[in-house]
């Protein structure tokens, strides 16, 4: 029997990162403060997870200025979206196997 755990994405096994990817995959792009509000987390925590996702090229970062204030927007990459889908498929598989 195939082991469904192999297909789980190590990066996305962390809950906050899974949340970030889910939000970004379903919207065009998001800024830092809005993400912080949705996930109800701290600056440092969110920044760490965003950095981890960026390192894997799951998300892309666009920096710009609005009224001279820095504005950073995050966007899911194709790689990130595919990985998220695979991760959800693996979770699905896992649930099915446990039901048997």
């Amino acid at each position: 029997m195939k082991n469904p755990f192999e297909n789980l994405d190590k990066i996305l096994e962390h809950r906050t990162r899974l949340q970030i990817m889910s939000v970004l995959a379903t919207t065009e792009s998001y800024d830092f403060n809005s993400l912080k509000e949705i996930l109800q987390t701290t600056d440092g925590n969110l920044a760490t997870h965003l950095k981890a996702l960026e390192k894997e090229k799951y998300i892309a970062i666009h920096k710009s200025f609005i009224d001279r204030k820095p504005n950073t927007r995050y966007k899911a990459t194709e790689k990130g979206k595919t990985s998220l889908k695979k991760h959800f498929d693996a979770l699905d598989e896992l649930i099915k196997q446990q039901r048997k």
Partner: protein
Amino acid sequence: MKEISEVEKDLAAVRQALDRSGKFLSLHGLSGVLAGFYAILGASYAYFLLYFPNSPIGFRFYFINERHVLIQLIGCAFAVLTLSLVTGFWLSYRKAQRLSLTFWNETSKQLLFKLAIPLVSGGLFTLILVLRGYYGIAAPALLLFYGLALLNASSNLYKEIQLLGFCQIALGLLCALWPGYGLIFWTLGFGVLHVLYGVLVHRKYDA
């Protein structure tokens, strides 16, 4: 080893994040009720202006192609619109504070943008119709565009708004079939439907 309860927690967290990210949760049901109430008041004013003491489907004393009547009607419509918007913003702002959400966030910006495109183009189109003297299709045009705007924005709102959008479109089409009865259809669409929808949303989400 990942336990099944952990998977469930993961999925619950994703669902919560998606709910908070996509939907404008601050919309207050009572703003729908009040908007409907203002619309009914406005329609009553229009009725007294145009038909009183006859029934709204019967003989009229005035027609809207008379300039002073037209101006009074447009003024009344704008008053209803402004009152509804102010009430809606105020109630939503308060609800956002209660839910400790920012009122002006990513979702509300998206929502406003999606609503504004059909509404502004529809509003301008209707004004052009009125200026050119096509009074008969001005009333259905606004109902239609409003319904389309609601459908366009429904992904950012409660799912019930979709039904409201379809109903407004249906009313708009019926209204176009029976020109001259715009007042009745507007009372139904902007008044009665808003009150019904507001009560529904208020009971379901404002707890």
